[in-house]
């Protein structure tokens, strides 16, 4: 039987992969993608709990999260484009014009 643990476990693995990618990636686009992974992990949690507890609010929240994630990606990529225009690269390790 597939229990809620299975889903939570899957979500956790997804979240970890996302966190790893987010911290290790140099390219900003990849960082953004890793964040999407993390958000999806949270969503899997929400939907799984919703499904197993019989409450619908989790699904509703998950659908909001999807919209929020899309908005976030949109703004994020717009900022990336600005950065690319100024720096000719989106490598975060090169974005070091400010240092103390």
């Amino acid at each position, binding site marked *: *039987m*597939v*229990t809620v*643990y*299975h*889903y*939570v476990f*899957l979500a*956790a693995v*997804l*979240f*970890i*992969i*996302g*966190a*790893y*990618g*987010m*911290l*290790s990636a*140099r*390219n900003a*686009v*990849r960082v953004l*993608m*890793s964040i*999407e*992974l993390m958000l*999806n992990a949270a*969503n*899997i949690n929400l*939907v799984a*709990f*919703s*499904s*197993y507890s*019989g409450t*619908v*609010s989790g*699904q*509703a*929240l*998950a*659908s*909001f999260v*999807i*919209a*929020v*994630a*899309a*908005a*976030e990606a949109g*703004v994020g*990529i*717009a900022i*990336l*484009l*600005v950065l*690319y225009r100024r720096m000719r690269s989106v*490598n975060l390790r090169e974005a070091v014009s400010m240092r103390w």
Partner: protein
Amino acid sequence: MIQELVFLVISLFVIAGAAGVVFAQRLFHAVLSLALCLLSVAAVYITLGAEFLAVIQVLVYAGGVVVLFLFAVMLTRSDLQLRREPLESFAPVSAVLFGVLVLFYIARTGFVPQGERALAPGDVASVGQVIFSPKAYALPFELVGILLLAAMVGAIYLARRDERW
């Protein structure tokens, strides 16, 4: 038995897709991998009976966000830069360690909802009820609308080239 198998296969796709995002050499492949992962997550939702959400996931993520990422890769010519240099910080390592800890935690603890799935499969209407009921999530729903508008205004302003003015 079949259920487990289905879950296993889908999970493998999810994880393979995610791993592709993080580890793929070429960024374009990573985005495609992301698409795979997100579609598989939609499949996960279907196994959970959340068909509405699955569709939304495909519509917004696969159709919108992934395309946006593809654009980003193309516009920033990111694919020309290969990565996979040696790790220079402990942050990713610690992330993984922390994650393993979390997994361990989850593996040996209980959550409140137990046992079989409780929600009727494919209950689009009930999700709609929650989202649009003023007593429930109507307010956040409208907030999401405003959020999307705000994001759009911001993104358009930023992406616009000022020379056009």
